[in-house]
């Protein structure tokens, strides 16, 4: 049973994310008062007419420029957070996330491939082909990782992570080769590698929203089974959890979320690692809480980072670089602590 305190945090974080979205929309080159932002958002969501005296430029800036990017940040962060929580619970490893399995790198490889194909004269509409190729890359990577780990019938966590690391290493080299082939267009490929939300459009949001909803629902449906996975495969199976089926469903769902996130924002590391880890310390390891909380916290964290680079810092630092710079040292601390306290201390 999730604790009452834990349950109370869910609406709190949802409210914080909503407030964060509105606040972030006021910030930027042009400062727009919060009351105007709220009025503009309400006017676009409801038939309520726009009040007099609001600068039409502000309307365009909020609805066409800032909102898609802000929502993309919240959705991408949320999906990475949920994927991280699920991967950690499935692999019984608090250091796991989309990267440990090589899925993000696979998705980035798929996305980069679209650009290289363009050079060879095969032009595909990027709005459709990039997410599809990213998903294909992610699923392909997952398939190879599962195949490599399958010698071990029950898909144990060590073999999965090892397989993920091997495949990610090969794919990184493959992306390097694509960069070499892309020559003049290398800038776009670097975007996939460093991550940025600057190109987000409403089209992206229409793709991300249903994916995020679907992913979080599936993860939440299996949250109790995920808890039981913590007792190991054998014990979980005798409790009626179909471990192989559970792993397959959740891995594919999280791959879908990761691939869609990567196709919009490039590789953004460490959100999926840090968010569930921090939350586990605050509210405990129950996935019925962790899954929704990871969504809101991931969204908040990435929104914060993106607003920082978009509106506060003098130069726009690629967001993947920023999260890696902030998250990397954090990762080192967890890793060191884990060694000191013994592995089971999470």
């Amino acid at each position: 049973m999730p604790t009452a305190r834990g349950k109370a945090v869910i609406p709190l974080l949802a409210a914080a994310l909503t407030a964060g979205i509105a606040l972030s929309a006021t910030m930027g080159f042009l400062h727009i008062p919060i009351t105007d932002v709220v009025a503009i958002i309400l006017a676009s969501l409801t038939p309520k007419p726009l009040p007099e005296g609001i600068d039409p430029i502000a309307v365009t800036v909020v609805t066409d420029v800032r909102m898609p990017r802000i929502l993309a940040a919240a959705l991408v962060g949320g999906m990475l957070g949920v994927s991280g929580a699920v991967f950690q619970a499935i692999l019984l490893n608090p250091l796991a996330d989309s990267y440990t399995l090589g899925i993000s790198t696979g998705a980035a490889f798929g996305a980069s491939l679209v650009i290289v194909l363009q050079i060879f004269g095969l032009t595909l509409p990027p709005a459709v082909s990039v997410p599809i190729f990213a998903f294909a890359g992610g699923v392909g990577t997952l398939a190879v990782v599962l195949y490599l780990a399958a010698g071990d019938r029950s898909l144990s966590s060590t073999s999965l992570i090892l397989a993920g690391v091997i495949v990610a290493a090969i794919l990184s080299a493959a992306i390097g080769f694509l960069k070499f082939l892309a020559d003049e267009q290398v800038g776009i490929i670097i975007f996939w590698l460093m991550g940025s939300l600057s190109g987000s459009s409403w089209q992206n949001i229409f793709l991300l929203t249903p994916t995020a909803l679907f992913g979080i629902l599936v993860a939440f449906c299996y949250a109790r089974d995920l808890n039981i996975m913590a007792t190991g495969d054998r014990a979980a199976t005798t409790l009626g959890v179909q471990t192989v089926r559970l792993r397959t469903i959740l891995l594919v769902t999280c791959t879908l979320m990761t691939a869609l996130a990567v196709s919009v924002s490039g590789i953004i590391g460490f959100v999926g690692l840090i968010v569930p880890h921090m939350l586990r310390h605050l509210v405990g390891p129950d996935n019925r809480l962790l899954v929704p909380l990871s969504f809101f916290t991931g969204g908040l964290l990435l929104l914060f980072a993106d607003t920082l680079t978009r509106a506060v810092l003098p130069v726009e630092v690629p967001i993947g670089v920023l999260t890696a710079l902030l998250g990397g040292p954090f990762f080192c601390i967890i890793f060191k602590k884990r060694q000191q306290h013994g592995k089971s201390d999470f």
Partner: protein
Amino acid sequence: MAKAISDRRQDRLWALQDVHFSYGGVPVLRDINLELRPGCCYGILGPNGSGKTTLLDLLNGLLTPQNGTVEFLGHAMRSWPRKQLARHMALVPQDFMVRFGFTVREVVEMGLHPHLHRFASPSPEDLALIDEILTVTGIAHLEKRSVTRLSGGEKQRVAVARALAQKPSVLLLDEATSNLDIHHSLEILHLTRSRFEQGHLQVVAVMHDLNLAAFFCDELIFLKEGRVVRQGKTEQVLTAETIATVYGVEAEVTTSTFTKCRQVSFRLPVAS
């Protein structure tokens, strides 16, 4: 005649026929023919690598034999849905490990999983059952403690509590007390034995310690190199001859005046 057969099926828990099992081509169990009846506490014994745990995993459906059939309550094991099977039998593994810091109570409540719908919360009766189980297993005072911070003995008691919360009709113990000191071992075995004697529970236990097995089990099944070499009532099969055949050690089997159970002392065969 047909009636008699179906009645006979009713009163046996498992029936294994000509069961062969191998891991990657290496045979682990061969020619296993067993019938396990209710009302009898079974012990599976044998040297390391004789296939004890594999046999237990065939009984709980975790493994499927390459040849032969395993039936549970008259139905082929493979026709049992996993969750329904989990309502009938629970397993206490040798090393109960929980990753992530779930509290003792949360882990014991996981035992309710096969009885609950996906989004259902435990009923007040379920919660009362959990309270009772926490008390009888002697871990009520630990209920809010993280399982990652328990001693080995405490952890095994959590494993037993979680298995009892499953409300099983059969409890499988896989060397559940092998890593515990004699006090904790006896406590867990007493607890299980008393539930068995009250008729709440059938028990099949893989055991290492012959003396504990003699005290705990009504019938013993001895495995050697993947075959059943002796099977029968404890006082009939637990003999010096059996121990010499199975383990290759000399033994003296006596009935203790203190415990009223068979007791075994051993020595390596003296080279002649």
